[in-house]
C-alpha cells in the first residue's frame, strides 16, 4: 500500500467544524425546555470535543490505520505464551446471529434459554478438558480467572477458620501471577527453578508451610517444559493444606493428553483467547473461566449457570442463573461474563471434538519441537541455544546471551530485524530467569513450510549480524515507523490529543 504523508493524522486532526456522520432520528414527542428537564447547573458548558467527520472519512481513516498493523491472518505470529493460533472465520458468523448478539443479559431466563444452554454446555466441556467438574464462566480474562482462583482459596481457608498470608509462585511465573497475589491480599513468595527448568522441589519444601495458602503453577511452565515433579509438588502443597492453582495459559500443550484435575490441581483457569481461538483483538476481549474441585465449588462466583431437570415427564430441562449461593465469593464483574467469547469457544470445541482437541495439542507440540530442531539444523543454536536441553512442549525458550556476546546484537535487535522479514517476533525477555530470552510458540495451525521459512530467516539474520551487527541494531527499516523513543514517551507522557482550550 502506498504510504501517504497524512497517514499519522488522528481522527481529530481530520475533523472540520460541521461535518457529521450521524443524523438523529427526528423528535417525535412534545419538546420540553431543556432547563425543565435538566437544570443548567447540572449541565456541562461545552459539548465534548469529539471528531467531526462524515462516514467516508471515518472509514478511510480506520482502514488506513489498520494497514499499519501486522496481524495473525496475514503472517506467522510465534509469540510465546500467547498461543496465536488461527481464528476460525465461522465464529464471527455465529457470534453475530441476533439470538446470540442481541440478547440482553438481564433477559428473563425463560427467554434466554439458548444463551444459558450454550453457557452450560461450554462449562461442561471445559470441565471435562480440565478434569474438574465445576466451572464458572464469569472471569473476563486470564488475570481475572487468576484472581478468582486466589479469592476462592481465601474463601476455603476462611471457611475453615484458617488465616494464611502467603502465596507461592515460581520465578518463571507470568507477571499476572504475583500481581494477582497482591490484589487478592496475600504476600508473594518466590520458589526458584532448578537446573532442569523445573520447580526446585527442595526450595518448595522449605517454603511450603501452613502460612501458605496456595501454589500457582503453569504446566507446562513458561519455559515450555512439563513439570516432571508434579506428583511430588501436589503432595507437598496439599500436605500443608494449601491449594494448587493451575494457570491455564499453556493448556494448548496437553488437551486430551493430560488433565490438570488429574494432576491434583484444585482450581484451573482457561484463557479462551488462547487455546480456544477467541481473536485477540489487539489486546482483548478474552475470557478466563475457572474449573474447580468439589470442595471449592461452594465458593464459586455468583451467579452460576445451572441446569434444572424437569420434574414433568418429557419436558425440557431448564437452564437458569443460580444466585442462591451463600458461600460464594461474590462477583468479579457484572452480568454473566463475556458471552460473545463463549459462543466462539463453544463453536470451536464443537468443531474439533475430543479427537480434534487432542490432535491440536499433539500438533502444537510437534510443531514446536520440529522448529527447535530446524533452528538447530540451521546453525542457530550456536548463538541462540535452547535454554534447557530437553524436549519442549508447545513452546521453547532460547537464550540470546551467546548472540549478544559474540555477534554484538541483543534479543531485542533480533526481534526488530524479524519485523523486516514480515513475521511477528517471538516473545522477548520473558521468562525472567533466562538471559536475553526469546520464547517461541508456533501453534498447531502453522504449516511445516512456514516453520522452515522462519528457521531460515533467523539463520539469515544471524549471518548478517556476523558481517555487520549495526544492521539489526538499527532495525526495523521497512515498517510504518522505525524504533520509537519510549523513554521520551514515559518521561513526558502525552496520552491524549492536544486541542484548543486544553
Amino acid at each position: 500500500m502506498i504510504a501517504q504523508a497524512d497517514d499519522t493524522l488522528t481522527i481529530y486532526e481530520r475533523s472540520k467544524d460541521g461535518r457529521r456522520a450521524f443524523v438523529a432520528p427526528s423528535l417525535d414527542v412534545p419538546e420540553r425546555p431543556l432547563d425543565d428537564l435538566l437544570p443548567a447547573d447540572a449541565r456541562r458548558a461545552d459539548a465534548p470535543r469529539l471528531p467531526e467527520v462524515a462516514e467516508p472519512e471515518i472509514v478511510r481513516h480506520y482502514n488506513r490505520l489498520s494497514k499499519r498493523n501486522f496481524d495473525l491472518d496475514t503472517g506467522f505470529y510465534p509469540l510465546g505464551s500467547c498461543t496465536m493460533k488461527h481464528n476460525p472465520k465461522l465464529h464471527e458468523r455465529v457470534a453475530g446471529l441476533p439470538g446470540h448478539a442481541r440478547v440482553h443479559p438481564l433477559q428473563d431466563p425463560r427467554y434466554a434459554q439458548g444463551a444459558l444452554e450454550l453457557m452450560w454446555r461450554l462449562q461442561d466441556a471445559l470441565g471435562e478438558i480440565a478434569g474438574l467438574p465445576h466451572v464458572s464462566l464469569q472471569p473476563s480474562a486470564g488475570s481475572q480467572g487468576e484472581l478468582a482462583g486466589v479469592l476462592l482459596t481465601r474463601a476455603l481457608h476462611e471457611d475453615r477458620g484458617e488465616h494464611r498470608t502467603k502465596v507461592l509462585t515460581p520465578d518463571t511465573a507470568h507477571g499476572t501471577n504475583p500481581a494477582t497475589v497482591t490484589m487478592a491480599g496475600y504476600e508473594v513468595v518466590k520458589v526458584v527453578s532448578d537446573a532442569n527448568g523445573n520447580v526446585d522441589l527442595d526450595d518448595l519444601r522449605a517454603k511450603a508451610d501452613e502460612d501458605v495458602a496456595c501454589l500457582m503453577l503453569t504446566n507446562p511452565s513458561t519455559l515450555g517444559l512439563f513439570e516432571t515433579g508434579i506428583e511430588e509438588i501436589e503432595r507437598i502443597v496439599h500436605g500443608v493444606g494449601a491449594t494448587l492453582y493451575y494457570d491455564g495459559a499453556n493448556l494448548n500443550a496437553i488437551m486430551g493428553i493430560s488433565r490438570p484435575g488429574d494432576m491434583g490441581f484444585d482450581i484451573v483457569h482457561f484463557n479462551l483467547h488462547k487455546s480456544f481461538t477467541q481473536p485477540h483483538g489487539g489486546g482483548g476481549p478474552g475470557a478466563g473461566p475457572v474449573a474447580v474441585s468439589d470442595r471449592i465449588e461452594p465458593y464459586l462466583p455468583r451467579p452460576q449457570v445451572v441446569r434444572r431437570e424437569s420434574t414433568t415427564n418429557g419436558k425440557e430441562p431448564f437452564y437458569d442463573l443460580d444466585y442462591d449461593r451463600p458461600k460464594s465469593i461474590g462477583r468479579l464483574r457484572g452480568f454473566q461474563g463475556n458471552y460473545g467469547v463463549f459462543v466462539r469457544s463453544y463453536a470451536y470445541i464443537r468443531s474439533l471434538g475430543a479427537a480434534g482437541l487432542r490432535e491440536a495439542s499433539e500438533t502444537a507440540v510437534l510443531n514446536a519441537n520440529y522448529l527447535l530442531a530446524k533452528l538447530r539444523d540451521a546453525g542457530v543454536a550456536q548463538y541462540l541455544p535452547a535454554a534447557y536441553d530437553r524436549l519442549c512442549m508447545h513452546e521453547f525458550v532460547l537464550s540470546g546471551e551467546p548472540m549478544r556476546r559474540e555477534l554484538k546484537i541483543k534479543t531485542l535487535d533480533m526481534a526488530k530485524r524479524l519485523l523486516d522479514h514480515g513475521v511477528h517476533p517471538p516473545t522477548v525477555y520473558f521468562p525472567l530467569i533466562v538471559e536475553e530470552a526469546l520464547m517461541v510458540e508456533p501453534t498447531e495451525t502453522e504449516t511445516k513450510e512456514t516453520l522452515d521459512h522462519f528457521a531460515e530467516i533467523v539463520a539469515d539474520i544471524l549471518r548478517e549480524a556476523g558481517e555487520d551487527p549495526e544492521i539489526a541494531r538499527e532495525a526495523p527499516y521497512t515498517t510504518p515507523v522505525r524504533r520509537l523513543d519510549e523513554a521520551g514517551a514515559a518521561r513526558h507522557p502525552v496520552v491524549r490529543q492536544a486541542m484548543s482550550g486544553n
Partner: protein
Amino acid sequence: MTRYTSATDADRAEMLAAIGVGSIDELFADIPPGLRLSRPLALDAGLSEQEVFEELKALAAKSTSAEDEISFLGAGMYDHYVPALIDSIILRSEFLTPYTPYQPEISQGGLQAMFEYQTAISELTGLPVSNASVYEGPSAVAAAGYVATAASKGSRFVISRGVHPHSRECLRTLAHAWGMDVVEAPLKDGVTELPALDDGVSAVIVQQPNFLGAVEDLTALAEEAKSAGALTIAACDPLPLALLKTPGECGVDIAVGEGQSLGNRLDFGGPSFGFFAATEALMRRMPGRIAGETKDVDGKRGFVLTLQTREQHIRREKATSNICTAQALNALAGVIYLSWLGRRGIVELVELMLQRTAYARDRLRNIDGVTQIHDRPVVREFAVELDAPVQRVIARCQEQGINPGYALGREYPEHENGLLVAITERRTRADIDRLADTLGAAVAAERQTVRARA
C-alpha cells in the same frame, strides 16, 4: 488433520525424523504415565462447519433478542443502534487478530486507535488521563477502589446505594481481600445522602446517573469527600456525559463506567469495555494499558504503550493491577462510534433520549397503579413503583412483545414492585405509547387478579 491444522502424514514423518523421535507419543515422555489420559475426552465428535453453524443457529433461536421484542430493559446495558461501519472496521483482520501491541513498529494502527479512544474518554469525563480500556463497568469500580487503597489513607469505602448492584458487589468481593470495610450510603428522595465522613474513609463511590436514573450532585458529593481526605470515584453512564457536567469539573478523582452503549452489542452481557479516567496526580497509579505519543528515530510521529512500569509484566507484585488482556477491540468500536456520533451528534442523540424519557415518564406515571419512585431529573432511565406484582406484570407484557424494564425488587427490596425503564434512540414515540398501553393493561389485570384473590 482437522480443517485448522495442516500436518499431513508425510509432514509428520519428516518432522519426527528431524526431531529424532519415532512417534508423537515420545514427545510427551515427560508426562508421568499415571497422568496420561487413558481414554478420549468425553466430548462429542467434531462436526463439519455446516453442522456447527446449524447447532449455533438452533441455540440462537431459543433466546428472545432485542429484535424479537420492543425492549425497555436497561440497568447497565442498553439496546442502542450500532452503525454498520463499526463491524466493517473491527472485523478487519488487522484489528481483529493481532495481539497486544508489544512491538509498536508494526502496531501503529492499534496504538493510534487507543490514543484516539483515550482522547474521547478524556473529553467525555473531563479528566486528563484515560487508559486504553478495562473489562467493563462493575469491575472498573473495584479497580478504582484498588487505586484508592494505594493512593488514599483510610480503611473504609463509602459506596452509594445508587451504584449498580453488580458494582457494589464487585467492590465488596475485592474489599474483603484488602481488609477494607464497605459502608453503604442510602438514597434519600432518589439521590445519595452521604453519612458523616472522617479520615478513615479512603474513597467515596457514587454513580451518575444513579441506578434509579437520577442525576446526582457530583460537585457537592466530591466536596464532602475531599474535606474528609477521601478520593471520589464516579461510575458514569457515558452517553449522558455529553450533557451532564463532567466528573472532572465536579472535582471527581476517578471516573469509570460501562462502555457497552458506545458502539457495542448487548451480547448477553459481554464482551464490552470499561473506561477508566483520572486526574494527573493519579496517572502513575492507573491500571491498564496507556498509549502515548512519541517520535521514531527518523522524527516521524508514532505511538507506544507507555508508563509500562505500572503494569504486571514489569512491576509484578507491586503492579497497579493484574490486568493483561483487556477489551481493545471493543474500545475501538467505542471510539469509532464516538467519531460517528461526533461533537454535535452526541448532543443531539442524548437530547433526543432526554425528551423521549421525559415523555415516557409522563405517560407511565399517569397510569392508574403506577407511581414515580422519585422525581429527580433523569436522562435516559427512570424508576416507577407498580401497585401490582411486578414480575407478573412483566410476564404479561412480554407475552405481548414488550419488555417493559427491570424488576427492582431483588436488589432493592424497599421497592418491592419497582420497575426500571430505559429509553434509547431506538424506542420511538409509538413504542413508548405501546409500552404505556400494554403496561397499563397488565397492571390493571394484575390488580384485578389480586383483588379477586383477596
